[in-house]
Structures are given as C-alpha cells and as structure tokens.
C-alpha cells in the first residue's frame, strides 16, 4: 500500500515535470480561446461578424467562453506577468 502511494507520488511529480513542456501550447490555446468568443459575439464590440441577432441566439451555447472572456478581460492589466511566468531559469 505504501509502495503504491510512493509510486503514485513519483508518477504525479513526473507528470508535473512533463506538463511544463506543454505550457506554451496551453498559452497559445488560451489565446485562440480568446479569439473564438470574439468571433462569436464580436458584433457587440464592433467586429462586424456575425450579426448581433445570431450572436444573441448563440449565447446560451457559449456561456463558458463568455465567462472565460470576461475574466480574461479583467486580467488585461497583467498580461506581461502571465508571459513572464513562462520563463525557465
């Protein structure tokens, strides 16, 4: 039992080490996620596609994206901090 928990701990630690390598992909994915809701509901902020009525119809299906977009809009004063956090020394 103890051996199993030690093994699990080491496995998780190794997983953590490996997960560091995907951080840049995750960062780029997040950037794409930002673009996606903007494309969907961009007409509200002046991006002319799609028309507002379609955006409103789509809204119930993009609740999560709207939430993420709203929260990330609040983080715009700390974008540099996020990018600097990707550094390795």
């Amino acid at each position, binding site marked *: 039992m103890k051996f199993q928990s030690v093994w699990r*701990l*080491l496995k*998780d*630690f*190794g*997983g*953590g*080490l*490996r*997960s*560091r*390598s*995907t*951080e*840049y*992909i995750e960062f*780029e*994915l*997040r950037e794409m*996620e930002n673009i996606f809701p903007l494309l969907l509901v961009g007409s509200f902020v002046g991006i002319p596609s799609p028309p507002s009525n379609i955006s409103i119809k789509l809204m119930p299906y993009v609740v*999560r994206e709207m*939430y*993420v977009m709203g*929260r*990330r809009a609040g*983080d715009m*004063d*700390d*974008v*540099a*901090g*996020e*990018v*600097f*956090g*990707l*550094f*390795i*020394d």
Partner: protein
Amino acid sequence: MPTTAVILIAIVIYVCVYLFYGRPIARNVVKIDPSRETPAHRLYDGVDYVPGKWPVVFGHHFASIAGAAPIVGPIVALAWGWVPCIIWIWFGNAFIGAIHDFMALTASVRYDGKSIQWTSGEVMTPRVSFIFSIFVYLTMILVVAAFANVVANLFVGTPSVATASLLFMAIAVLIGYLIYWRKLSLPWMTVLGLALLAAAIVGSMQIPLALPKTTWMVILFFYIIIAASLPVTILLQPRDYLNAYLLVFFLLLGGIAFIGLNGAITWPAFTSFNAHAIGGQASPFWPTVPLVIACGALSGFHAIVGSGTTSKMLDTEAHALRIGYGAMLTEGFVSTLVVVALGAFGLTVAGITAGEVGIAGWKDLGIAVFSESYAMGANAIFGMSVAFGITFASLAVCCFALTTLDTTNRIARFAWGDILTRGVPSEAARKNPAFRFFTSRWVAATIAAGLGIYLATTGEVFSAMWAAFGGANQMLAAIALMTSCIWATNVLRGGKKCLPTLIPAFFLWVTVAAAYIWYISAMAGIVNPVTLVIMGIMLVLSFYLLYEFIVALKRGPKKAA
C-alpha cells in the same frame, strides 16, 4: 570531509528550516488557511485556473525553476572554496530564496493569481510595475549573453555535446511530427525518443563537431530567433517533453551517486575572501557572491514563475509551503550536489592543486569539469562509462541552457512590446510607422538576441558575463521581496513590520546594490561597455525602487486584499 556527511547535513538543515522556520512563517505571517478557496477553485474555468494535485504542481513548478543556473553558479563560486559556497547556498535558500518564493506565491494566491509584477504596482505604485518590466527586459538580454556563453563554451569544450544537441533537436522534431501529425501513441513515441536520445549520445562520441566559439555564437544567434518564432509544436514542445526525462535521469543518477559515493572532498574549504572569482579580478565574497550563485540560493525569476503560473494551479493554501518553499530548498539541494561533485573530483579533473584555486590568473572551472566530475561519480557507483557520463551530463546542462534561451527571446520580445506600449501611451504615436517597426515580431526578437549575442561575443571572460546576469536576477529578487514585504506589512499585518521579509529584502538590496557598484568599477575594460551601461541603468532604477519601498513602508496599510 566525506561527501555523504555534507549531503546529510544539507538534508538535516533543509528539514529543520522547513519545519521550524518555513512553517511558523506560513502559520503566523501569511496565516495559511486550508479552508480559504484558492483562485484555482474560486475562478475555475478549465483553461487558466485549474487545481492540480500537489506533486503535479510541485513537479511543474520545479521544472520551471530548475534550469542550468543552479549548476553553473556554484561552478564559478568555487573560487572562494567550497565552504563559503555551500554556506551561501544554504543561508540564501533558507532565509531569502525560499521565503521569497513562498511569499510571492501566496501573495499571488490572495490576489486572484495575479503576478508579482502586478502586485508590486498594487501595493506600491504602478511605476514600480513598469520598472519591473524594464528590469525583466534588461535581464533577458543578459540571460541571452550568459546562457549563449554557457552553450558555446560547452560545444567548444566538449564537441561531442554539440553533435548530441543537434541530434537531440532532430529527434525532438521527429517525435513531434510522429505525435502531432502522424497521431502515433505517446508512450511508444516517448520510448522511441528516449532510445534515440541514448543512441545519439553514444553516436555523438564518435563524431564530435568541433567549431570555433565565434561560429557557434553566430549559429546560436540565428537559432534563438528562429526557435522563438517557430510554432512551439515543431521543436520546443517535443524537446521540452524529452528534456523532462533528461532532468529526472540527471537528478536521480547524480543524487544517488553522490549520496552513496562517500568520497573525500579534496577541494580547498576556503581560499580567500578576495578570491579571483569574477572576470579574473579579486572579488570580495560579500557583496559579490549573489552575482555568482544566483538561482541555487535565490532567484528573482522564481517569483515570476510562482505568481504567473503556479498560483493558478494551487488546490489549497496548505500546499503553498511545500511547493513555494519546498521547491526552492530542492533546487538548493541540486546546487549542493554540484558543490559536492566538484569538491570530490574537481581538482583531479581540472589537473590543478588546491593552492592554485582562486589565485591571480584564475579562470572559472568550466562546465566541462563539472560534467566529468559528475561522470566520475556515476562511474564509481553505477559503473557508467566516463565518456558517456560526460556527454550525458553536458547534454543535460546544455538542454537546460537552450530551453532558457528559447523562452528568453520569446519573453524579451513581449517585454519589449510591453515597455514601448506603456512608455508611449498616445494612440496616435503608436500608429507611427517607426513605433510599429520597432514593436514588430522580428525586430523585437532580433534586438534582444542580437544585443545578447553581441555582449556574449565581446565579453571574453565567462564569469564576468555570468555575474552580470546574476546581478540582474538578484535585483529582481530584491524587488519581489520588497513587494512581498509591503504586502505582508501593510496588508497582512496592518502596518506591523514583518521582519522575516523586511530583513532579507533590505539585506539583499544593499548587497546587490553594493555588488553592482563593485562590478561597474572592477569590470571596466573586461566586459563590453554596453554591459556596464545596462548594469548602471539597473543600479539607478534600483535606488528609485528603494525609495518607493520606503515610502510604501512608511505610508502603512492602504487596503485589504
């Protein structure tokens, strides 16, 4: 002294410090509350804020803070002897570095995962946050200069590493292609990648690639720009993935070898207070030691990593101590192993006597000496071939340095844009073609890489360039500590001074500022004048930051977190 005794002393010190210094600070200063929701839960979105199991977050955080620096620093610092070197590592870890990392992480957790840079603007003034960006950018240029030197010196000193590194890149591209484009199984591709990597190390010993340092510098210049601009899935991501395994093998093999070795440390315990450690000049141990042993004892970048990424993954505040404080102690342990390895084999490998260490005309040991010492330890315990061990250890250090170079230029590019955008608030001015030109992707990437490589090629003595990077890094740490101190004093304790952060913040600032002054006067004529100008700018800015720090400290509480 036996190597095992030093390692056991290190373990005892680290455990005691964790239990009897770290824990009380977590309990009494930060008032860690496991029932308080962390940003990973409170702001969970499945994208940025996602809680992770503590070993996963620890591994992720450790992989971000453990690069080549904790290995290179002690190699240079051994000019003072191994005892002062190891004392600074342990002292710096326990009372400055680990506190710095832990406080930055917890401050970020309390401020919804915001970065330490943002927090500095919040608890002091927005100007501090802007200066933080300038510091990061200038540091990035010095990082390029120092780490390009590390890589080029390794390639020149051990040409088989150059071959192995190039083969490693080719393997990474192949594995990335097979995983992302051919959709082949990740576990099998991992096995294939590691097998090819082992074959590359063996093969590279037969076909060493010997080129002059200047040629490597030119190659590195183009490499940095291209690597920073390629899609990450082509090279960086698969290479970092395989790097993680390299890091594990490197640490496991070295850790077990030097714990089990029980050899004698033959390196002189102490040479002189004014050993010729930096740029071949007589360098006073205080205040210059932090310029040399940077990340092994404390590092400003840890605050940036901890507050930029780790804080958004923390499952509960109860994990903050073991991740923030514990990971720094673990990194200090890596530096301890480096000192022990060189202490046991350094003199033999370098072919010098104890009396020659740190005297006039002394040049730093070089990473090749560390690699061979590591290989001899691995040979003594595991019977691994010394030639294989040298290439393996050198490749591991080289990969850490290359990864740092890759990320550096991406970040420098961003920092450049951030500084210019904040420095030019007028929308009309930003539409100016000159502004657009200077903030464009390729120009921004070329400026940082070009300036860094230029400094690297004109700084003849590696230790002098390394100390410039170390100084920038340590001043970043001082700013982060000042931020944490103001947060702890004004926000957590209602204006009551927080000595565990105030003393290290002030001590570090005084030490590093004094070291800057020494560096600028002692390194004139040794390093490129541009390096001295960069150090001068940082020194002036650091005085301004001290002023802001004192004003914020006197002002007292502003608002609660």
